[in-house]
């Protein structure tokens, strides 16, 4: 904004300082006025413009650093809330009510119209008082709403949710849920692998979101294994529906069926039967391999025992074999000894590092 009528040639420092176009020229080098040309034309203004420039560039504000992890937590909470809302939207619960009242009101006669109008007015007044009251309450409860449970490599954890659902969390995994579930939905976010035994509650569906793949259940037990963009859902009992929101994909599983969804490049989904002993082995402390390549085996061992594995043997001799076997509560050394005997490698332990040679 330019002071009304003041010509540039009469500009003083404070005029430059408050001229929007000048500020933008100093800060962003963009302006609607040709300031360089103007200063060439009126060189007597240069000291003023220089002073203004110096002041503007001196106005740097102290940055109070905001705790990154707090911001991350906040983002998680917002993601969670909006997911929950989107899930309700898909169920059609949110808007159906208002549509129905609008349709009903149209059919009333004039007399009835006034009656309805006054009723609605009362309803709105009372309703807004109530929603205000509940909004207030909701807000006060908000900070303690969410719980995050996490396991490191080599750790496992069993968590009980407020509805009685039991969740076993495999190593290197994370689960986020509401401390006390609300009345419409039971929603859980998962990264990594977990086995769910869902408490029966037909009024509130149980949803697990694993990187965009949402599994919905009423009262069932199932295993979810999420690695990056690949999510594996294996149903043990009951019934679940699995949805991939991005691709608008939906599939229903029966007991014994497993669905593998991969969104790495487009959507690929495969349904097949699974071996219960294989998928659920981890929940009873059994390390299970079925025709697995060296890379997969070492990744599993790293996560299971919380170690880092370095392979010093030439890649050619390590590639091209696969191994099957299972170990029940066995030490890392025994496991490596058994596999190494068959697949011809040696190993040594250095702290939490394993070297294969």
């Amino acid at each position, binding site marked *: *904004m330019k002071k009304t009528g003041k010509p540039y040639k009469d500009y003083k*420092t*404070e005029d430059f*300082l*408050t001229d*929007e176009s000048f*500020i*933008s020229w100093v*800060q*962003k*080098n*963009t302006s609607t006025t040709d300031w360089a040309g103007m200063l060439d034309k009126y060189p007597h203004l240069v000291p003023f413009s220089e*002073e203004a420039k*110096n*002041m*503007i560039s*001196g*106005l*740097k*504000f*102290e*940055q*109070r650093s*905001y705790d990154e992890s*707090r*911001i991350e937590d*906040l*983002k998680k*909470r*917002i*993601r969670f*809330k*909006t997911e929950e*809302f*989107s899930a309700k939207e898909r169920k059609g619960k949110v808007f159906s009510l208002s549509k129905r009242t609008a349709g009903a009101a149209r059919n009333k006669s004039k007399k009835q119209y006034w009656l309805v109008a006054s009723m609605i007015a009362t309803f709105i007044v009372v309703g807004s008082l109530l929603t205000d009251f509940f909004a207030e309450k909701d*807000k006060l409860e*908000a*900070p303690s709403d969410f719980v995050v449970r996490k396991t490191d490599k080599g750790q496992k954890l069993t968590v009980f949710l407020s509805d009685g659902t039991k969740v076993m969390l495999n190593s290197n995994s994370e689960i986020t849920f509401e401390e006390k579930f609300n009345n419409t939905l039971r929603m859980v976010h998962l990264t990594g692998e977990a086995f769910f035994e869902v408490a029966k509650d037909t009024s509130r569906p149980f949803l697990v979101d694993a990187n965009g793949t949402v599994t919905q259940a009423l009262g069932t037990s199932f295993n979810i294994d999420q690695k990056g963009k690949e999510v594996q859902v294996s149903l043990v009992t009951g019934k679940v529906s699995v949805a991939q*929101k991005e691709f608008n994909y939906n599939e229903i599983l029966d007991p014994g069926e497993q669905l593998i969804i991969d969104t790495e490049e487009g959507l690929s989904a495969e349904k097949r039967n699974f071996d219960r002993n294989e998928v659920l082995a981890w929940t009873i402390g059994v390390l299970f391999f079925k025709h697995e390549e060296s890379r997969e085996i070492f990744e599993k061992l790293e996560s299971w025992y919380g170690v880092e594995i370095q392979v010093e043997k030439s890649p050619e001799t390590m590639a091209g074999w696969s191994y099957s076997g299972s170990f029940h509560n066995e030490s890392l050394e025994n496991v490596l000894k058994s596999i190494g005997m068959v697949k011809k490698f040696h190993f040594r332990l250095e702290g939490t590092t394993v070297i294969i040679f």
Partner: protein
Amino acid sequence: MSILRLSYRKEKDSRIWSDMKRGSKEAFDRVFNEHMAYLLNYGRSFTGDLDLLEDCAQELFCRIWVRRDTLKDTDNIRFYLMAAFRKELFKALKKEQKKNFWRSWILPSSLPGFEVSLETAMVEEETRLRDLNRLKGGFAQLSPRQKEIIYLKYYNQLSFDEISEVMQLDKKAVYNALSKAMLSLRKNISSTSS
């Protein structure tokens, strides 16, 4: 070049915003990833209560998502969010104040004020260092309102129109307050130097 960059920013903002309005979760994530830290830092100048700040931010973003299809268009997301966040925050701070009615009855309290300071200068050249220190001193003496206007104008690079909308002030009042503030800053530098 820079005019191009500016129009690019505007184009990008309006595209992201309209994608979000159409229900793109990715665009929504982008909005809060890009602006959250800014908003919280802005809010921090009004209150040290981080829980309250984060509640307000959560409230704001959830509402944006829930009402996404009724939001008006914008080509400056930062400005849009700052205006909405400030409103949300003031509402919450007033509520907070009501809750602490008895305390505020005994201890005089006012509406939330804006508190920031300029960064401590780190330059070699002596006269420049002296000027910057005087600028910092002068800035500390300004009113909260003047500080906020300067912060929005010179740091967030909002226009006078946008500032008057964010602060709910008449555009003329914004301009006058800024003009007075800059005059007093200038005096502070030159009077002590002569």
